[in-house]
């Protein structure tokens, strides 16, 4: 999946799941500071990523390093490419 397509799907998840506005969801937006996600949201993000994109991130250490939307998109792409 192309990075642009992943970014679009991630934005859709954030709009649907976290009721955020599209203009907030820039690649540089930080998940926990600017978008105000918390530990419960992080759990729900993993559930939504699996459901909507088919990528399994549950319990993955790398998720802890994600700070921005762009970090998340890059990580998803990495996992998808790993197959």
């Amino acid at each position, binding site marked *: 999946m192309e990075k642009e397509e992943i970014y679009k799907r991630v934005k859709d998840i954030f709009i649907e799941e*976290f*009721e955020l506005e599209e203009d907030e969801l820039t690649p540089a937006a930080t998940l926990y500071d600017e978008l105000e996600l918390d*530990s*419960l*949201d992080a*759990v*729900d993000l993993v*559930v939504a990523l*699996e*459901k909507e994109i088919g990528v399994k991130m*549950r319990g993955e250490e790398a998720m802890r390093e994600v700070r921005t939307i762009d970090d998340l998109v890059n990580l998803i792409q990495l996992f998808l490419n790993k197959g």
Partner: protein
Amino acid sequence: MLNHRVVITGRGAVSCYGLGLNNLFDNVWQGHSGVKVMEQWQAISGLTSFLAAPVPSFDAKKLLPRSLRRTMGGMAVNAALAAREAVAEAGLDEDYLHSGDIGTAFGSTTGSPEIYEQLYRTLLFDKSIEPIKSGEFFKIMGHSCSANVMYSLGLKGEQWGPSSACTSSAQAIGLGYLLVGGGRQEAMICGGADEVHHSVTTVFDVLQAASKQNDSPQSTPRPFDRDRDGVVCGGGAGALVLETLESARNRGAAILAEIVGFGHVGDPGHIAHPDPDAMARAMEKALSEAGLTGDEVDYVNGHATGTLQGDSAEAEAIARIMGSSTPVSSCKGHMGHTLGAAGALESILSIEMMQRGELVPTLNLDQPGDDCKNIDLLGELRPTTTNVIVKNSFAMGGVNVSIIFKRFG
């Protein structure tokens, strides 16, 4: 025992008539039934009652932020909205709410049955935990309503979640009365909530205590009536602000009523059978605490759910304590049995009857049963000055509660 007088300064409701006190009062006073046929339940093998009085659907997104909603099942949404309305009627400001001097006691029979169903469907049938979201536990835990009320209002005082089925909110009010009266809290947001769900009606159906009058949903349940045949479950939430008299006076709040007695007794005789002796003891205890006698009671708002045994036992108990000339009615004919919300919603209605000087009769009571003729069953709206009200709430499992509301002054 209690060193503070406890008054009520706010009420809030979500019911089968929709959101808010005005919808509740308008529909109850006009004698409207909230009962309907639940078509989708007809697919459940063995179930014979397809009746309920659910809360009409509404868009909670417009009323509560996602940060609160994500941990709320339907009953907790309703609890939070009822509590918010009660706080508004009482005029409690943000500083006071966040001071630690205000807590909550808010009960329900269980956590959200709808979410239980979804969760166990995923676990047992899909055999997976992967789709389960983080908020689900907070929707099904026993203190889901009290926790979500606390978060939605920013309360820092005591949090209690009484869970005793049909007496949950009556216990919550009683507990609030003890905590406020005893000086542990200056105010408490008290109430309860429950949801309509086929698993809840199943409980009564299994015990042969659910109404089967599926062809005439607006005519059942029929508390105290000759043709009563059981419970119809309802949904909703009721909330009351209980406050010390000093606090209410300091704030200049309008006082709606005073709580002067709380009878709360166990019945170890049988876990499912109503017992007139236990019901009578609950009323006696409440009256004794209030320093009142049965003949000083102006109105009894019965628990009466429309079951053969329960209504008969309550009529006997009321006749024993109050005699045969005290007006009695039940709100279950209008809203069904709202279980964990019943004590609170019916207390709210009782206080409104006191405020308006009108007693509302039991909907669907056409011909009193022979075993209920020993009390003065209201047949129509009765204008009268009411100073002392006894509110009964009883639950299977041997919980018997009577609360006494007195006109303040």
